[in-house]
């Protein structure tokens, strides 16, 4: 046996050529057929879209999938081309990637690292996917990223906000366009200081898992740096549905600001509960009580309904941005599906384009060449202004949006308004920043 990964599709093509019409079995090993895992040898290339289709993030996953389908359509020359026309790189020409028509397979991560890896593995082993992308939580992103490193395919992360994805769990074959906890803290702190003053006592409720920890750390250190005091930080179980017993003691603690380091269902419920308790009508230390949600998404804002009004948070992207790239994307997404895209959809669409572009520029699907093409790559026109894919940790550095729940929404999608576009310089950190310490990128893996 050879020391090689399975490369189904690539093999099939060459095998079919060699064995056409021959009934005798021919044994092939992967190494003789291809130079890297799942090298596309036919007229098509297969991408794997691995998103949550069941479980609490299914709606977010559905939106990601819409974006992927749109991206594939644009790559293959269909539709209006979306951001391909505003993208600073003009390598993509609407004829697929390197002239090969883009096909895709989909899978269900169930928002569980095991299921996500199973699904990704089936894409790699069975469907011959040469790149895996998607996901809606950091646990899944980190797990699938490690798998792709091992298998020798590229992983373009979907929605993942934890520092760890490009911090201690970074991998050479993995890339993240989405922003992270540190950036949220760095972007939010000045806006909070401007709006709420520098003399605040903050009370953190933190989801009791990795993403919660990194977010709490990021927000704490950036708010404390500008003079805020952290009164308490309480960890809440992931499976918690009713946060009343965590919210109730907040006022007694003398805090005047509540930071909800929660995402998804946790955030919807904790924010709803906090508003229910009338926290926002209270006065503490002579100031109006305030609530902050570090990571916002429109889908969550929708779940929390009117409770988000006036609450600050950060987001990777929002459809109301007025740059050409964003407008082009919103237009083609909105035309196809009838409503504006979410930030998850945006990051997934962009990741697909960035991958395709990198392959096009590298002139090969070989993962190490793609890594090289992406590392240190600077681009523009994809909605967040000038952006750098940093070589040291494969994290995108770009402007971050500070948003606020809109007081008078005009539709069910118009829930957030952009307060400030924090310039990239303000959210940039050195690769060896303590919040990202530990772990190593390693070297890229071509697999086969």
């Amino acid at each position, binding site marked *: *046996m*050879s*020391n090689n*990964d*399975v490369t*189904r599709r690539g*093999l*099939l093509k060459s*095998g*079919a050529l060699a*064995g056409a019409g*021959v*009934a005798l*079995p*021919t*044994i*092939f*090993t*992967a190494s003789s057929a291809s130079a890297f895992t799942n090298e596309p040898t036919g007229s098509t290339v297969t991408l794997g879209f691995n998103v949550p*289709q*069941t479980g609490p993030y*299914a709606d977010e*996953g559905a939106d990601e999938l819409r974006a992927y389908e749109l991206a594939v359509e644009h790559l293959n020359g269909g539709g209006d081309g979306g951001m391909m026309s505003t993208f600073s790189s003009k390598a993509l020409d609407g004829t697929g990637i390197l002239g090969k028509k883009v096909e895709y397979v*989909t*899978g*269900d991560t169930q928002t*569980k*690292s*095991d*299921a996500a890896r*199973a*699904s990704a*593995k*089936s894409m790699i*082993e*069975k469907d011959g996917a040469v790149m895996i992308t998607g996901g809606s*939580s*950091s*646990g899944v992103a*980190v*797990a699938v990223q*490690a*798998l792709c*490193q*091992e298998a020798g395919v590229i992983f373009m992360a979907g929605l993942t906000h*934890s520092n*760890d994805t490009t911090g201690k*769990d970074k991998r050479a074959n993995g890339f993240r366009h989405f922003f992270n906890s540190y950036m949220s803290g760095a972007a939010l702190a000045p806006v909070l200081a401007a709006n709420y003053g520098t003399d605040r006592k903050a009370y953190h409720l933190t989801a*009791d*898992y*990795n993403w919660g*920890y990194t977010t709490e750390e990021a927000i704490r250190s950036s708010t404390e740096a500008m003079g805020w005091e952290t009164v308490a930080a309480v*960890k809440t179980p*992931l*499976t918690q549905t009713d946060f009343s017993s965590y919210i109730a003691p907040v006022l007694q603690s003398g805090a005047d600001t509540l930071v909800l380091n929660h995402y998804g269902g946790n955030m919807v419920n904790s924010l709803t509960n906090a508003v229910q308790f009338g926290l926002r009508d209270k006065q503490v230390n002579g100031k109006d009580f305030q609530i902050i949600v570090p990571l916002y998404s429109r889908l969550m804002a929708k779940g929390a309904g009117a409770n988000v009004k006036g609450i600050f948070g950060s987001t990777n992207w929002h459809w109301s941005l007025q740059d050409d790239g964003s407008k082009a994307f919103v237009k083609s997404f909105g035309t196809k599906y009838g409503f504006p895209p979410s930030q998850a959809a945006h990051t997934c669409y962009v990741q697909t384009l960035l991958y395709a572009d990198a392959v096009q520029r590298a002139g090969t699907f070989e993962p190490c060449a793609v890594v090289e093409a992406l590392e240190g790559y600077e681009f523009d026109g994809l909605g967040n202004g000038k952006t750098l894919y940093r070589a040291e940790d494969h994290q995108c550095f770009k402007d971050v949006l500070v948003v606020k729940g809109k007081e008078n929404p005009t539709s069910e999608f118009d829930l957030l308004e952009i307060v400030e576009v924090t310039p990239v310089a303000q959210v940039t950190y050195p690769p060896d920043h303590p919040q990202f310490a530990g*772990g*190593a990128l*390693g*070297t890229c*893996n071509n697999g086969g």
Partner: protein
Amino acid sequence: MLGLDKKDAVLLVIVAVLTMFAPFILNPFPEGSAMAQFNAGYPDLMQRFVIFGIFAIGFNILFGLTGYLSFGHAAFLGVGSYAAVWMFKLLSMNVIPAIVLAVIMSGLFALLIGYISLRRSGIYFSILTLAFAQMMFALAYSVLTPITGGETGLQLALDDPRILGQSQTPEGNIPVPGLFGFEMRDSAELVIGSWVFTFNLGYYFCGVILLLAFYLAIRIFRSPFGMMLRAIKSNQQRLNYTGINPKPYTLAAFVISGMYAGLAGALMASMDPLAGAERMFWTASGEVVLMTILGGVGTLIGPVLGAGAIKYMENIISKINSDILHSWFAFLPDGLEDFVVTIVYPFIGKGWHLTLGIIFMLVVIFLPGGLVEGGQRISSWLRNRRARRDDRRSKTEPAE
């Protein structure tokens, strides 16, 4: 053969043949055809079939024989996975020490949890096991993050010591699990026409272990020990008054099935070196209960079939999307095509849970003995039909 009677030997041979030829059996459709979507003969899924088969066989030793319904069995799977990954991190990437440690660790956990939980029976026992597993899940996901990796799972890293192996490969990558120089992911392929069959070392490793596990289960089923376990399910009172102490028997069964779970966990980690806390969540425990009941409680082969059925749905049905549906029904006229796709769509892809729920209900309602009973019914129906045909023939013959 091997100390088995003929019927069991035949069963073992059937399982052996199915396992060894799975790459062929599970890939009946040629690559590129529309039906290739239903092929399950790729390494990851085949590995999952046998690993969850082992898990379910072990669970059945407890539930099928003694009737004690553990609702927290996934905890031992998780313990096994964590133990195995820690071995990969600290010792070496060889799977043997990892598996040995995983089985020992899960056995110890099972001994402790079983000793406490078996003080109660019926649903009280179920809730006790559930409570232990949920506690383990919750702690592993949160406060035990330094040991378990928490949300992201326990992973290998480039700077792990691996004292008997290497921290990194010469190319600067994390080494992969192997067996004395052979890597678990090694595969060879056989191409016949437009069929491609994959033979993966990891799969065959798991397959051999499945056969050993299955063989051991047969021996346990047919042993005096197994008979005592069935007697516990049947009438614990009588057993007590017959001079048998049921406690050590149930505890032994609990520990054995916990070790099977640990073995399955270690194999999962050996095929894919990551251990996540979700493995211990109550739904994962529920899944093995469903596998066992779906296949047929208390039967030897049932749990393996049940495991296969559920994993197949999870991995194959969930990957069918509307595009694929359209391509299947493209031969229909446009309106009809859309109509058919609309009807089918809710049941596939993201709707695979719905299909699963419906199948559970149908099986429980119509086949209380699970898939095994279904098979028996079909075979007895076939026998009857043949008998009737023979009957008819013998009746008509004299008339000729």
